[in-house]
């Protein structure tokens, strides 16, 4: 029964059973009623060697086609510096648990402190937690936090221009947590100011969730929104694409109360949907309402600076059902990922990433419009590196055609609308190739008509 992950020899097992006063491994389960014991083998494959495992996944990988990516919608194909993978693969980080024993977890605690500092600065807020599962759940947590902070109010407004993937998760949490949600209408691709003011003025709203940039890539103007919220004792929650904050106005600059979002855009691989990292930052005055772990600075018995999990009295393992949230982990390793990313890129690198994405996206938008078959869905609105286009072409056929040639051309968001994204990863050659492929599609479609 010798196996590479089990060091037990038959004589080890005999000696250990002897110490326990038992005769067989089965005897260790004698406290379980016999009828509940599984008396057959699992219906699973037999063990595979590493040679077979590699072959298995190589073969299976043939059924995937990583494509040149022109889609975003919550997951972005950004440059990931090779330094990051080298460091997060270090097993001292990778194979450790939540840093409960601070004396032998200073590595984890210190990078979380750095992460909190960077996220607070990036969002323009005062404090950040140690990270959350993803952007959707972080937004849902922000919603519950707003309800807890405003007491007695149980209504939250969500902008219609928020990524619908986020909205769906927020609505699910709301339904079970006893929160009523209402959608603020959109007008021409941005959140309706009139509808926002009308609904907040009712005076029963705990929080308002608005996006930056929004689902269509548009950077909305929130001048005066925070003041309006605050005059009605409502919290303004801003859901952001982390990378975009290197260029666009930060939640702190808009005077928002809670900043949330997904940190995937800070260099984390797309990984077919995860793991990513959610961030949540807020005002210092709301720190005790904040969900999740928080790391703070302190000193040790010798007076030297050190870091420790703090304000744990908010948390589930102490407060149980009265906790601010049921969160007990963070997304620690991914927090390290984005911390190293931000350390390498700095504010200049982050800005450059946005400049490259902006330029590439606007170039592609113009190329598409020049074919005569596409037009910007919201032509007068400023966008960053994502944009929506209207087309009369059959979108699914066009996407299949592009996929055959190795390109993922946007996300279909309605029968005649595509959402397209360009990051610094896309070269002019790639964008021109995409445009050529689309022109070929148009030509063959027109020939087909003849």
């Amino acid at each position: 029964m010798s196996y590479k992950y089990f060091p037990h020899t038959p004589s080890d097992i005999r000696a250990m059973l002897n110490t326990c006063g038992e005769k067989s491994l089965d005897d260790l389960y004698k406290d379980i009623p016999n009828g509940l014991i599984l008396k057959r083998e699992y219906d699973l494959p037999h063990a595979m060697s590493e040679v077979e495992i590699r072959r298995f996944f190589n073969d299976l990988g043939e059924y995937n086609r990583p494509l040149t990516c022109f889609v975003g919608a919550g997951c972005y194909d950004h440059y990931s510096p090779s330094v990051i993978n080298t460091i997060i693969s270090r097993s001292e980080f990778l194979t450790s648990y939540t840093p409960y024993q601070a004396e032998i977890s200073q590595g984890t605690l210190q990078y979380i402190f750095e992460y909190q500092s960077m996220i607070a600065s990036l969002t323009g807020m005062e404090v950040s937690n140690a990270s959350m599962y993803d952007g959707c759940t972080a937004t849902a947590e922000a919603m519950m936090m707003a309800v807890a902070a405003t007491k007695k109010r149980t209504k939250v407004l969500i902008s219609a221009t928020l990524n619908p993937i986020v909205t769906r998760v927020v609505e699910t949490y709301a339904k079970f947590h006893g929160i009523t949600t209402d959608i603020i209408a959109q007008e021409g691709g941005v959140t309706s100011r009139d509808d926002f003011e009308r609904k907040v003025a009712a005076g029963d709203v705990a929080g308002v969730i608005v996006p930056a940039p929004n689902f269509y890539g548009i950077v909305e103007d929130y001048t005066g929104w925070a003041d309006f919220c605050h005059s009605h004792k409502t919290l303004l929650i801003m859901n952001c694409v982390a990378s975009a904050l290197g260029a666009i106005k930060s939640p702190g600059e808009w005077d928002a109360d809670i900043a949330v979002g997904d940190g995937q855009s800070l260099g984390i691989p797309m990984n077919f949907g995860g793991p990513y990292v959610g961030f949540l930052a807020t005002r210092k005055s709301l720190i005790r309402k904040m969900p999740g772990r928080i790391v703070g600075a302190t000193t040790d018995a010798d007076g030297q600076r050190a870091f420790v999990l703090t304000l744990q009295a908010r948390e589930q393992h102490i407060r149980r059902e009265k906790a601010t949230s049921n969160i007990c982990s963070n997304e620690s390793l991914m927090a390290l990922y984005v911390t190293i990313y931000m350390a390498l890129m700095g504010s200049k690198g982050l800005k450059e990433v946005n400049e490259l994405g902006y330029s590439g996206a606007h170039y592609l938008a113009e190329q598409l419009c020049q074919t005569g078959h596409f037009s910007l869905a919201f032509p007068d609105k400023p966008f960053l590196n994502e944009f929506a286009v209207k087309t009369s072409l059959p979108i699914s056929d066009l996407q299949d055609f592009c996929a055959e040639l190795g390109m993922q051309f946007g996300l279909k968001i309605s029968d005649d609308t595509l959402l397209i994204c360009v990051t610094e990863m896309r070269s002019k050659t790639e964008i021109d190739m995409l445009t050529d492929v689309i022109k070929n599609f148009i030509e063959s479609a027109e020939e087909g008509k003849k």
Partner: protein
Amino acid sequence: MNNQYYSKLIFELSHEGRRGYSLPDNEFKEYDLASMPQNLLRQQEPDLPQVDELTVVRHYTNMSNNNFGVDTGFYPLGSCTMKYNPKINEEICAMPAFSGLHPLQQENTVQGALEVYYNLQRSLAEISGLSEFTLNPYAGAHGELTGLMIMRSYHMSRNDSKRTKVIVPDSAHGTNPASAAVCGLEVVVVKSRPDGTVDVDDLQPLLGDDIAGMMMTNPNTLGIFEHDIAKIAQLVHDCGGLMYYDGANLNPMLGKCRPGDLGFDIMHINLHKTFSTPHGGGGPGSGPVGVRAGLEQFLPNPRVKRTEGDDWYQYSIENTDSALGSISSFLGNFAVIMRAYTYILTLGRENLAQVGPLATLNANYIKESLKDCYELPLKGVCKHEFVFDGLKDKSTGVTTLDVAKRLLDYGFHAPTIYFPLLFHEAMMIEPTENESKETLDAFIEVMRKIAHEAATDPELVKSAPHHTPVRRLDDTKAALKQIVTFAELRQAEL
């Protein structure tokens, strides 16, 4: 070994004008970000460090030296199942054919990834004795919340709106009541008997038509198998409730027992415990949720389905209206799912069946070897973990916290301490199946040595640790000062 300079905060290594990145030249300069309306652009740059690449590498490498992981040494942290994280799992999940996929690519371009997802769903169903799984939840607590949402969706679908209470044993993990509260349920606590198992007599009067269900972990947090489980499940079912299984303690069950066969209806599994994916310093994890037949329509969107014909099959991503809604951006932590599936295929049916018995053997071996110097409140065979109530000799004043800190000096991670709450000096020890007899013997020897030190030189233990990168920390100062960013640290005095 650590370098004092590189171990500072990264902000303290920053120098104006340094950089750690390079990017391609802008090929479309005629489209300039600066042309966006000024009031939409950031006015104040984020305060991020300016550092070169080697400084970043040395900084984080030095920091890693201040950390202890499973690869460093024995990690007997109770209820956390700190097993070995096989390296082949890391290699497989990083394969570009999987890691390079965008989650919204067309289905026909991601069939291999969907097959991994689907096959892990099926494997977990077989191992747990339940019918269908979702792999979308990101962690154990997230799985609990999802499972409770399924419980409530089931009752709502029958227009049974009275069921707003969930029963939780007093020995339960703190997440259980917290998840229930987030899900809008009221927590009712059921007491434990002196032997650590649920008191059926205390349970019976709690049952009624307002009970949505009951949450249990089995073996429980004391490492004791709930021998009345069949009766408990029947009582809860008879009152119209559902049974929820907290999979945190699933490891000893592998090969021996399946939650579905014990009468549980809904459960979550911590892939980062039982299925060997790394804890990563507190995530990313993965908390798949399984249900018995009849509840699958409530599983969250999106779901992965398989369709097959005579000589073909294909996978699709589906959303339904009967689902409880969505609880994740996409299909969960896919890279974690890849690792867990690799683990299951690597061990295969024959070795997976050995995991539970060997983990249980290791726990019982430590328990029996130390019960003469540490207080063992519950006698008899345990499963994967057990609890000591501190040192046997209480006269020395040496607490469980002191013992835990002294263990660090000897190169071992500490057990889980002061949990469960049933004992004042709880010390919860969980070795996994990967630990050799020699490792356990070394741990036992150190634990005995600490007991001896407590008797002969208690101050040595009370002031531990002495040989770690930092000494015992001032938790009160941290909570009082609330310094949680570098900006605050610069302003404050520690």
